[in-house]
């Protein structure tokens, strides 16, 4: 399994996700879950096969991390749908997974990369996977917030909707903390420093503070304009951390994390 065979798996998975979404809108809940789950399973089979062929975890290049992101987004969408039964949740996660899958098909970064010694660590896999899962959760939170914010009626989110939104942020933030801590433990083991204020680390910390501020603002606040704007802003910071620093002038040539 390699990037040449990726489109076949991707198309099969996307078709399943689309069929699942369609069933959800037709109120066939069981069918929606089974079909979407099948799509994610096909995707996972590709990732695992790719892992075995590469002989190293596929977490090294942007293209490879996008694989995980698509996969986790679909899983988060299924989880959300099975909790709350809003069909559009599956629709959104399918759409997002589709976008990231398409990027990988149209602009594949197929040149393989070796794993330099610093990356050969037990921490490598959990560190990156935890971050990707977190990004998927927070991506879902952002989409959900934007939906609640921009829909015509009702204006105010219900308690139930707030609870879903907060849970997504809380879990996404918990995984940000896990990823950051694992990164620090790993850096200590590899280089002797927990934290070196590398631009990626700095932006990861800013992202973490920003979501943390949301979590602290929320309990005494129901101003959804402010809070949803804040979530959107936080997600922009997350994008800076993920790939934006590759473009940022203040980070050029100084980050060990640019790829």
């Amino acid at each position, binding site marked *: 399994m390699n990037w040449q065979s990726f489109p076949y798996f991707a198309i099969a998975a996307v078709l399943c996700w689309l069929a699942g979404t369609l069933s959800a809108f037709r109120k066939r809940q069981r069918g929606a879950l089974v079909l979407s789950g099948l799509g994610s399973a096909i995707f996972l089979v590709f990732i695992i096969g790719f892992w075995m062929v590469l002989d190293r975890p596929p977490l090294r290049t942007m293209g490879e991390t996008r694989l995980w992101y698509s996969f986790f987004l679909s899983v988060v969408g299924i989880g959300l749908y099975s*909790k709350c039964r809003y069909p559009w949740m599956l629709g959104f996660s399918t759409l997002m997974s589709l976008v990231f899958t398409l990027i990988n098909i149209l602009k594949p970064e*197929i*040149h*393989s990369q*070796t*794993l*330099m*010694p*610093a990356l*050969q*660590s037990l921490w490598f896999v959990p560190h990156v996977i935890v971050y990707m899962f977190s990004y998927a959760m927070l991506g879902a939170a952002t989409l959900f917030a934007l939906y609640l914010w921009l829909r015509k009626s009702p204006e105010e989110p219900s308690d139930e909707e*707030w*609870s879903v939104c*907060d*849970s997504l942020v*809380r*879990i996404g933030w*918990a*995984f940000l*903390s*896990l990823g950051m*801590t*694992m990164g*620090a*433990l790993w850096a200590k*083991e*590899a*280089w*002797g420093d*927990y*934290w070196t*204020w590398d*631009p990626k680390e*700095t*932006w990861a*910390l*800013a992202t973490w*503070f*920003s979501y*943390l*501020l949301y979590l*602290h*603002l929320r309990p*005494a606040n129901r101003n959804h304009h402010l809070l949803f704007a804040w979530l959107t802003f936080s997600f922009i*910071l997350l994008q*800076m951390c993920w790939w934006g*620093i590759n473009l*940022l*002038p*203040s*980070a050029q040539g*100084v980050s060990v994390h640019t790829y």
Partner: protein
Amino acid sequence: MLQRCVLLLGAGTALHFSLGRANPSFLAYPWGVILAVNYLYLLILLRANADKWQWVKRWYDRAAYITSLASMLVLTLLFGLIRQDGSTEGLAGVLGLTQMSSSWIFNLFLLHFTTVMGLKAIDDVWHWRRRKLPNVLIHLSVFIIFTAAIFGSGDKEKVKVTLPLGVPEQMGVAHDGLSARLPFALTLKEFVLDEYPPHIHLYAMEALSPEFVVIDGEGSGGELGPWRVECVGYLSHAARLSADSGYVDMQHVGATTAVLLKAVHTDTGQSVEGWVSCGSHIFGGSTLHLPDGSQLVMPQREAKKYLSRVEVVSAKQSRTFDISVNHPATLGPWKIYQTGYDSARGRWSTISVLECVKDGWYTLVHIAMWMILAAGALLFAMGWGSRKKQKEEKV
């Protein structure tokens, strides 16, 4: 709240103009520990008397933690946006924000934030409620980490040692550039380097193709642009005696990797054959020129793993460690890290670069970090719908 921020900003600026960059050396052992213990005592004292002294409550109420969080966010954003080159130009340079981690402004706000969080953490422990376990764990562990980061910042001892094979060495270079004496002597017994198989790239229009083929023996190969590349000869220890001869098998210091490649154009069927090698510090390299003007080249092979077998002799004991990246050796409060070797010589390197780090805060910070991992897992396990549950409990 705004007043407090203005005050911190003013104090930070004043300190910067009077003292320059914050230099944590005054926190070197034992002062960092003494101050940390007193700081902790002060916080506990404040919290213990919070009912008597109402103003203490204002130090960790909602306005305080929202402000302290927001101020840290703003400073971290500036940290990310301002190029950290230590320049003194412009407003950021004048205020010392071009070297944020040693600027007074940043560190004062950090201390303020840590104080607010510390009071909150102590308060959490005071009003222990099991349901809030992950929150308590997080407030407490982040507080410990930030406190250790602030008060431990003067304790960092990091000594770089360059070890030639077989020669005991007790001196190194500290992170301030001065030479430093270690409490033990290091001797490099053996250095082993494992490399990835050679990669062959196409070099055309002054650029190396991002694609490559991996050559790990005769018969291996692949396609590069319009060329089909196949390996018809593989020497892992090769030498070349003159610039225009081929490579021969030779077990000699400096032996390099050389592959005999056959390239066939996929459209025209045109075919060329020749040696490609990355060369070494002794023997020259070689590329294969193709008829269309491009070349097949082998960059230096990438290191897969490197390991130093090092004998460490201190007053008390003598031990031998295998040290590699991600696998430091531990010797009391010291850890010894593999950081480099003579990359021009690659597998023939006769030196190894190690870094000895003394960190008395290691255990404390590690405990706190594992607490965060536990809290994160708990938050995940309990995260879903906890607010609903809280409400039901209230009802």
